[in-house]
């Protein structure tokens, strides 16, 4: 019996045909862009790097490449540097993307500590929350987590990369989950999948190569709600793609150099789930999937939480889970915003916030007067903006409000430090985050 949850919005999921199709591979883009830390990066122009070798600590070359320069992208965070690599196969015969050999290690010989070590060395990142897997495992181990979940909660429309991986590669996910359990010391493990998706061509099976699948229902957002619930407690979720990479790393010593993404939306000729090398520009992905119409908007990530790009050179990263195209520009903007006070934004907020009032205060420049609005609870699910009949960008207001609030608090803190008042020191503790977000 699906549990009733508060708020959220019902979305048309459009997960077919991507979910039922086989996962395709994109082998050789001409260029890849890898995110690097400039301090630790020292490469010469046209220096050669072999596949699966590090280009700098924690970043591995997905293919045979040569370094050709540095670049930033305007609409991603501009402080982030990307190194541009050309693929260089001229002196090598066709090499497969991820060589599948005989298992190099005996599975049983790998201990829990080894797993964490491997996850750290191979720079595996959880694709759902962008955290390093080894950190998550370590934290879970320290917290004494008893139940681990393989996370395939794709609650955003079009996105089915996680589900696709879970149902097409259950063997890999299962063994990866086993390794993760070993590392954490968890007793139970399940796979989590969002099942409120309407008609699927292939039914969602309840068990997959020995792994039990828990189906989650309810309105969008489910993943973020679940994440809040598990924030402190005996549960932890790990993305299925991270688990696949953990499996490969443990078996063949392969670092994480690919990501699984959904290529979809109304303009794509061949919507499907794809495994692509990290750093592949969107251009190549579009070429592989084929366009039947000119999209107005392309996003990295799903329609609710993604980022719109204007440059087809923008690369996919370990945390990218979808590249979606849209025929029409339905995005929110801060320009025309006449709120009619219908209150829908307040009624859908799954965190019971009041975006209507937050917007009002921010517009009036009275952030300071409304510390009681608890904008820090926002999980940025964008339900409020989705439902607003006037197309107001409420998430942006909530974010702005949080930022202004932070600035005010910092100013207060520094003022307090200038004139220390011993009786008040230490009273300023923050309220604890609650366990449930019903």
């Amino acid at each position: 019996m699906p549990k009733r949850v508060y708020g959220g919005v019902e979305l048309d999921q459009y997960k077919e045909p991507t979910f039922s199709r086989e996962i395709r591979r994109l082998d050789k883009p001409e260029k890849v862009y890898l995110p690097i830390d400039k301090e630790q990066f020292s490469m010469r122009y046209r220096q050669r790097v072999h596949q699966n070798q590090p280009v700098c600590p924690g970043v591995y070359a997905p293919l045979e490449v040569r370094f050709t320069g540095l670049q930033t992208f305007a609409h991603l965070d501009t402080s982030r540097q990307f190194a541009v690599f050309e693929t260089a196969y001229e002196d090598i015969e066709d090499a497969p993307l991820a060589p599948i050999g005989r298992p190099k290690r005996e599975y049983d010989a790998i201990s829990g500590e080894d797993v964490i070590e491997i996850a750290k060395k191979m720079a595996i990142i959880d694709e759902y929350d962008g955290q390093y897997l080894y950190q998550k495992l370590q934290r879970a181990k320290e917290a004494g987590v008893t139940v681990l979940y393989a996370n395939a909660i794709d609650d955003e429309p079009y996105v089915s990369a996680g589900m696709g991986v879970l149902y097409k590669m259950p063997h890999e996910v299962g063994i990866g989950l086993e390794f993760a359990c070993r590392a954490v010391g968890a007793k139970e493990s399940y796979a989590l999948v969002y099942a409120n998706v309407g008609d699927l061509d292939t039914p969602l099976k309840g068990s997959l190569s020995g792994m039990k699948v828990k189906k989650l229902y309810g309105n969008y957002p489910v993943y973020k709600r679940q994440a809040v619930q598990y924030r402190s407690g005996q549960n932890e979720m790990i993305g299925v793609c991270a688990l696949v990479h953990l499996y490969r790393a443990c078996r063949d010593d392969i670092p994480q150099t690919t990501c699984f993404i959904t290529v979809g939306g109304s303009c794509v000729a061949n919507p499907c789930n794809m495994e692509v090398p990290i750093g592949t520009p969107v251009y190549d992905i579009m070429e592989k999937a084929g366009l039947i119409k000119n999209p107005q908007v392309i996003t990295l990530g799903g329609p609710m939480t993604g980022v719109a790009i204007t440059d087809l050179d923008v690369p996919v990263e370990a945390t990218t889970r979808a590249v979606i195209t849209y025929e029409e520009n339905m995005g929110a903007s801060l320009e025309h915003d006449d709120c009619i006070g219908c209150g829908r934004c307040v009624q859908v907020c799954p965190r019971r916030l009041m975006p209507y009032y937050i917007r009002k205060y921010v517009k009036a420049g009275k952030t300071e007067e409304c510390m009681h609005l608890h904008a820090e609870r926002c999980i940025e699910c964008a339900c409020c903006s989705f439902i607003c009949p006037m197309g107001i960008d409420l998430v942006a207001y909530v974010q702005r409000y949080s930022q202004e609030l932070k600035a005010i608090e910092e100013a207060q803190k520094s003022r307090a430090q200038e004139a220390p008042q011993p009786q008040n020191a230490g009273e300023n503790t923050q309220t604890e985050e609650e366990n449930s977000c019903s």
Partner: protein
Amino acid sequence: MQLTAKNRPYIRESSSMSAISWDFTIAMLPLMIMSYYYYGARPLVMSLFCAASAHIASILCSLLRGKGLVLKDISSLNCGLMISLMMPAAVPYYVPIVGTVFAVCVVKHTLGGLSNNPFNVTAAGFCFASLTYPQMVFLYTLPLEKLPLFGDITAKMVESPAYTLKLGGMPNFDPLEMLLGNYPGPMGATNILVLLTCLLFLVLRRAVRWYVPATFMATAAAIAFLFPRISGGRIDSVIFEMLSGTLLFGAIFLVSSPYSAPKTKLAQVVYAAGCAVLTMGFRYFGAYELGLCPALLIMNAFSHTLDREIFRLRMYLKNRRVQA
């Protein structure tokens, strides 16, 4: 390929602002048809005048406020329709028009236009009209008597059951006839069955949340049951209080209007209950039989406070539960 950068989300709920307003307009159409059935073409002409004057006034005000030509915003038009439907059919045309123009120009546009209306525009307009011309707004003609379009109304003027109730008398109408709207009263607000159908439509279209009119009517019924004004017994009291005046019309079109109401569910319920208590208070002790509109305006003033305090309480309880 020209890509545009916009903020998320990139998909939208389909119902837009104008769709919500149109829902209300459509819901009022059957009421207008019923008023035509009972009173002839006069109510229709009146509604038309009100709607047109509201829309024109709104456009002019938008222009004056430098907002440009806003043709699509039909919420003022709805306001005009609602005011006309709450009037007696025999009222001179200028009365509802004065109310409408006051509502649109003074209440709506000076207090912030489309957005940020602290007060329910329609209620304010109706209050203004009825306080300016009380002797015309609360006298009704008998239904099924066709009224002339122009010129003097020669039909007999009577008081509505709401007024009889006020005097403590028992209205001598059959409740069944009252269900069908066959009694003197506001031209669009008497037909209970049609009103219920409108309510169903609006709830299904999600333009109205069912619990708001439900709370309102339930509270009003409870008060009528506990403190009957008439000697005929408690049940009769409930029936006549429910069926008379603009109670149900107001519950559907005014109390449920979300724009000046609180935004959270619980606050809306409290707000609806508060409206009911005040409405009954005005009915019992007020000078005119006008109850709902001033009650609504008073509750409007508490919308924000209600939201804030309920939110605060909820967060407080949450934190306490975590710490426990």
